[in-house]
C-alpha cells in the first residue's frame, strides 16, 4: 500500500491558554473521502488551518506522501497541492468564471499578455472534468452558491490539488444542489484526489464518505470505516461519556416567568416560530449547532435585529424591542459571543468598559465622575476576580477569560432581569471557565433569569436547569436539565431515535 497522501501525528496547538488541539492523528489516502466530525469547538477548524498552512502547530508532524513537512505556509500548502473549499467561495463577483480561474492559476506577473483563448479553454476543460455545466464567460455574481463552489473546485483541480478540504460545503445548499456537489466529490475521488469532508450532517457522511474520524476536545477519539459504524455510535463518540468538569450544583427553585416568547421570528435572520419561557432563578441552556439560529435569537431579544413575528413578554408585559438601548432599559443584558469585537472595546480601560452600559445611572447629568467609576470598577474586579493591573488597564491587555468577566461586569452593572450569555466560555482557559460557571450559578441563585447559549455540550448539560435545542432557526426540543448528551446531540442533529 502506498504511503498516505497526508498523515498527521499528535498535532497540538494552543491559543493563549486555550488548547485547541491536544494530540490529533489523522490520515488521508488518495482516492478517499475522509469525513471529519465533531462538535463546535472540537478543533476541526484549527486542524484545517494547520493543514492549509494558516497556523503552525506547536508540536506534532505533518507528512505529505511520506515526506515530513515543517513550517508549512499557505503558499507552500498551495504548491504541494492542498486546496480548501470554504462555505463562502472567495471569488471576484464582477469577473467572469474564466477570469477567476485564470487569476488563480496563471503566473502572477503584471507584464504579460493575457491568453484569452487559452484561458477560456482551460476553464471549459476544468469545469468539464468535474461535470459542471457552467459557461466560462458568465460573471461569477450571476452564479448560485454551489456553482461558485464548483468553480472553486475547478480552480483547485487546475492547480493540481491532490488534497481537497471541504468545510461544511452543503450548509447553504438545497437538496438538488447537494446532489450535484456529491457527484463532483465522487468524481474527485475517482480521479485519485483525497477529500477531507467536514460536515455536521450525519446522513451526508454515510452517503459520501469512506472513513470518518471524530474529534472531541481537540483530540481524535476514533477513526472508522463508514460501513462499520452507525449513527448512534458516532453520536456517542462525539459527545463522549464522561463529564470532564465539575459543575456547580443547580438549585431548582425557579420564580416567576421573566421572559416569554410565543412564535417569535425574524425573516432577516432566519429565525421562526420560537416559543420559550425563562423563569427567574433559572439557567435556560440553548443548545444547537453553529448556524442553528441561537445567536440570531439573542440578537432579536437584544434589539439588534428586531423580531417581525410573534410576541415577546418580559415580566408579564408585552413589548417590542427595537434597539439595544430599549432592550437595556427594559432590563435585558446581552454578553455577546464575539468578545473582542462586541463584548468589550479593547482599547479602552477596564473601568470605562465596565461603566459603558450604565452611563445614565452613575454619571448624573452626563458629567463623568471618575471616583464613582473607579469604585464601581474595583467592586466588580474584586467580585468577579478579574485579573488585571487595575481599572486603568486597557481591556485588550487582559486574557480572554478576564475580558469576558469585564464584559459580564458591564452587564451586571445594569442590574438586569434577564441575562443572555452567548458562548461565555469560548476560548477561555479552564480556570476562568469554571469561575465563570460559578458566577453564573450564583447570579441565578440571586434571582436572575439566565439564557445560556453554548456549543460546549458538557457546559450546557452541567449548567442548565432546562435545555432548549435549536435547529434550522427554530426550537426543536425543550429537554429537562438532567437530559443526557445523546438526547441533546440527537435533537441538534435532527435525528429521531
Amino acid at each position, binding site marked *: 500500500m502506498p504511503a498516505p497522501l497526508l498523515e498527521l501525528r499528535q498535532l497540538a496547538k494552543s491559543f493563549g491558554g486555550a488548547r485547541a488541539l491536544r494530540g490529533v492523528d489523522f490520515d488521508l489516502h488518495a482516492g478517499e473521502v475522509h469525513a471529519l466530525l465533531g462538535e463546535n469547538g472540537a478543533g476541526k477548524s484549527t486542524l484545517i488551518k494547520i493543514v492549509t498552512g494558516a497556523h503552525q502547530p506547536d508540536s506534532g508532524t505533518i507528512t505529505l506522501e511520506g515526506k515530513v513537512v515543517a513550517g508549512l505556509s499557505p503558499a507552500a500548502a498551495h504548491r504541494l497541492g492542498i486546496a480548501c473549499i470554504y462555505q463562502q467561495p472567495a471569488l471576484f463577483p464582477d469577473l467572469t468564471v474564466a477570469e477567476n480561474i485564470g487569476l488563480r492559476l496563471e503566473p502572477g506577473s503584471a507584464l504579460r499578455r493575457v491568453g484569452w483563448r487559452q484561458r477560456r479553454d482551460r476553464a471549459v476543460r476544468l469545469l468539464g472534468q468535474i461535470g459542471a455545466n457552467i459557461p466560462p464567460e458568465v460573471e461569477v455574481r450571476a452564479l448560485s452558491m454551489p456553482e461558485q463552489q464548483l468553480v472553486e473546485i475547478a480552480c483547485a483541480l487546475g492547480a493540481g490539488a491532490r488534497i481537497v478540504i471541504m468545510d461544511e460545503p452543503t450548509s447553504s445548499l438545497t437538496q438538488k444542489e447537494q446532489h450535484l456537489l456529491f457527484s463532483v466529490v465522487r468524481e474527485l475521488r475517482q480521479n485519485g484526489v483525497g477529500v477531507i469532508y467536514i460536515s455536521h450532517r450525519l446522513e451526508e457522511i454515510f452517503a459520501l464518505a469512506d472513513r470518518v474520524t471524530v474529534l472531541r476536545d481537540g483530540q481524535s477519539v476514533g477513526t472508522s470505516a463508514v460501513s462499520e459504524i452507525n449513527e448512534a455510535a458516532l453520536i456517542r463518540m462525539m459527545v463522549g461519556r464522561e463529564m470532564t468538569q465539575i459543575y456547580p450544583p443547580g438549585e431548582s427553585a425557579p420564580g416567576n416567568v421573566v421572559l416569554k416568547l410565543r412564535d417569535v421570528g425574524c425573516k432577516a435572520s432566519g429565525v421562526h416560530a420560537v416559543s420559550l419561557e425563562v423563569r427567574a432563578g433559572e439557567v435556560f441552556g440553548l443548545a444547537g449547532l453553529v448556524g442553528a439560529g441561537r445567536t440570531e435569537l439573542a440578537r432579536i431579544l437584544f434589539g439588534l435585529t428586531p423580531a417581525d413575528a410573534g410576541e415577546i413578554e418580559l415580566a408579564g408585559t408585552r413589548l417590542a424591542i427595537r434597539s439595544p438601548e430599549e432592550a437595556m432599559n427594559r432590563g435585558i443584558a446581552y454578553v455577546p459571543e464575539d468578545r473582542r*469585537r462586541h463584548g468589550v*472595546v479593547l482599547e479602552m480601560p477596564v473601568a470605562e468598559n465596565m461603566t459603558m452600559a450604565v452611563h445614565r445611572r452613575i454619571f448624573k447629568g452626563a458629567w463623568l465622575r471618575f471616583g464613582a467609576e473607579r469604585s464601581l470598577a474595583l467592586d466588580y474586579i474584586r467580585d468577579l476576580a478579574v485579573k488585571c493591573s487595575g481599572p486603568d488597564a486597557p481591556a485588550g491587555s487582559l486574557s480572554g477569560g478576564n475580558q469576558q468577566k469585564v464584559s459580564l461586569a458591564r452587564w451586571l452593572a445594569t442590574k438586569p432581569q434577564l441575562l443572555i450569555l452567548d458562548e461565555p466560555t469560548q476560548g477561555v482557559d479552564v480556570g476562568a471557565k469554571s469561575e465563570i460557571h460559578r458566577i453564573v450559578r450564583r447570579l441565578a441563585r440571586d434571582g436572575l433569569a439566565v439564557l445560556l447559549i453554548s456549543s460546549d455540550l458538557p457546559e450546557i448539560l452541567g449548567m442548565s436547569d432546562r435545555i432548549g435545542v435549536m435547529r434550522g432557526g427554530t426550537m426543536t426540543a425543550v429537554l429537562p436539565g438532567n437530559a443526557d448528551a445523546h438526547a441533546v446531540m440527537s435533537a441538534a442533529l435532527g435525528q429521531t431515535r
Partner: protein
Amino acid sequence: MSENSRSRWKSLLLRHETALLFVVVIEWLCFNAIGPRFGTLDNNFDILRHTVEIGLLALVMTPIILTGGIDLSVGSLLGLCAILFGKLWRDAGLSPFAAGLVTLGLGALAGGLNASLITLLRLPPLIVTLGTYSLFRGVAEAITRGADTFTNFPASFLFLGQERWLGLPTQMWLFCGVAVVVWLLVHRTTFGRSFRAIGFSPEGARYAGLPVRSRLALVYVLAGVVAALAAIIYTARLGQAKADAGTGYELFAITAVVLGGTSIFGGVGTVHGTLLGVAAIAVLNNGLVHARQPREAAGMLTGALLLLALSAGVAPKLWAAWRSRHHASPSPAPKST
C-alpha cells in the same frame, strides 16, 4: 522621587501634546530671532486673530474625528453662512445680532443635513461631506451669482473682528468659550466617552447600548453651528462676506487635529492637542511671512511637520517591535516531541 511619580513624569514627557508644545515654543523662538517684528504684542494678536476661524473648525472637527468620521464640508459651510449672514443683514434688514442668531440656526440645519445622511442612510461621512462640500459652496455662489459681496457693516459689528475687548482680540473670547465647551464635552462628559467608544469600535458601542446615531448626529450638528459662528467672525474680521470665504479651511482644520495627536481612525485624541496643532500651524504661517519667506514655504513646512508628527507617533511601536525581534532573550527551544 518615587518610582510611581517618576514613571508618571516620564509618560507626561513622552506624550504627544508635550512634544508638540516644545515644537510650538521652538518655532516661536526661532521666528522671534529671525523676524524683527515677530515677537511684538501686535503681531501675536494678529496671529490669534487670523487663527480663530480655522481654530474653531479644528475644535469641532476633533469630536468628529474621534468618532472615526470626518467633515469636509465645514469650509464650504463657512462660505455659505457668511453669505447668508450678509443677506439677512443687508437684504432682510435684520440687525447684525439677529442675523447672527439666524445664521447659527441655519448652520445647525446644514450640520443636520450631514448628520441625517450619515446616521439615517448610513452613508460614509467622507462621501456625504464631500457632497455637501460642493453643495454648500455651490449654493453660496448661486446666491451671489459669483459677484455679489456684502460690505459696509456697522462698526459695532466690526468690533467683533477687528478690535480688542478686555485686552484681547474680541473674537478670542468667543474662541475661548467654544474651546472650553468642546474640551468639557470631550473630556468630562459621557458624550466624549461615547465618541471615543464609537471611534474605536462602532459595533462595540452599539452592543454596549450606547445611542450611536444620536451621538454621531450631535457632532455633525455642532460642527454646523460652529462653522456658522466662524463665518460671522470671519465676516467681522475682513469687513466683507464673499462666497469664497473659508476655501480650503477644512483641510487646515483636519491637519491641525491630526497634528494635535488625534488618530484619523478614531478613538484617540485630545482637544488641547488640537489647540496646540492649531498654534503650531498658525505660528509657522505668520513667522514665515515675517522671515520674508514665500507663502509656498508655509505649505511645505506644514506638510513636513504633519508627516513628521505622524511618523514620530508610530516610531516607538516600530522600535519596540524591532527590539523584541533582535534583542529578545533567546526564545525557548521548540518543545521536543
